[in-house]
């Protein structure tokens, strides 16, 4: 019978990661042509605290999705200031796929992202403010509702507000009702905002 039984340990004869796994060696491997080597280097760099900056630099020009994925996983493990600052820079990238991946990575870092959240929500670029609200979606932080209410009370950009209302409908409490009413008054001619506010009010309910 050609279905053969093979003991699992016999299949992989050598570890693919043959080169030295020190910081300098791994950083050099991040630049190799072979994406598998880059991916392993990115993963193994999780053992080195000082590697965030070099990972961010690679992330910005990496075009293989599986390598980007590994870099982002490592950056979320490291979660240091350099990692977070680098991720924020990537939110301004022209590359929509990279932006989405970075938003997902930042969602994994509630503790580290919380201190810079106010700054992101006040960013001059409305897209960055939208991404900041996207990140709030999974941020476990007592301030989340207040941040969202702040956005819909003050943010001049309709789409930043629209993103915040969507989330308020899910996480909001009756405390947010006045801010929601105010938002409707600020954009009376936007059918979408009226729809979204009414839905959020309904979902939130009365006390």
């Amino acid at each position, binding site marked *: 019978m050609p279905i053969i039984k093979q003991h699992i340990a016999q299949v992989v004869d050598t570890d693919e990661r043959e080169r030295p796994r020190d910081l300098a060696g791994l950083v050099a491997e991040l630049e190799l042509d072979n994406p598998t080597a880059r991916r392993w280097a990115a993963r193994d760099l999780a053992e080195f605290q000082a590697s965030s900056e070099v990972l961010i630099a690679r992330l910005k020009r990496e075009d293989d999705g599986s390598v980007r994925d590994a870099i982002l996983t490592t950056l979320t493990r490291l979660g240091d200031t350099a990692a977070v600052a680098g991720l924020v820079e990537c939110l301004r990238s*022209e590359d*929509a*796929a990279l*932006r*989405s991946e970075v*938003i*997902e990575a930042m969602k994994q870092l509630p503790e580290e992202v919380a201190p810079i959240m106010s700054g992101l929500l006040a960013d001059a670029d*409305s*897209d960055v403010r*939208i*991404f900041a609200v*996207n990140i709030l979606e999974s941020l476990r932080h007592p301030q989340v509702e207040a941040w969202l209410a702040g956005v819909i009370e003050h943010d001049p950009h*309709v*789409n930043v507000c*629209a*993103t915040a*209302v*969507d989330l308020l*409908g*899910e996480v909001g409490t009756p405390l947010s009702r006045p801010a929601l009413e105010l938002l409707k008054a600020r954009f009376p001619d*936007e*059918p*979408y*905002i009226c*729809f*979204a506010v009414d*839905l*959020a009010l309904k979902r939130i309910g009365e006390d």
Partner: protein
Amino acid sequence: MKRILIIDDAATVRLYHRNILEAAGYAVEEAVNGIEALEKVMQTPFDLYVVDINMPKLDGYGFLKEMRRQDIDQAPAIMVSTEAEADDRQRAYRAGANLYLIKPVKPAELLIHVHLLLGEVRA
């Protein structure tokens, strides 16, 4: 009944577009990102797609490119975006969009384009 797939990670946006399109007599389904959208299209293609750009896992550009490249469906797609820059518009058309609208979309505006793209003349 013509079928439309709405692809957006925001539940409120999906519901808003769904209400407008269902009221006009279309059958609507939803997906939260490009991968789920591809899975749905692969099961049964739709007559039209309303596609957001920024979504987790696979964004709107990625979805359209993959759908067109694998030749899963060539039906018209409206890309809806928060971004009004010319580059974004160009990128959407290159990915395979037939139309680019800026959010939030007014109900009448959405419907008129849907009718046009589906080749339906309505009074």
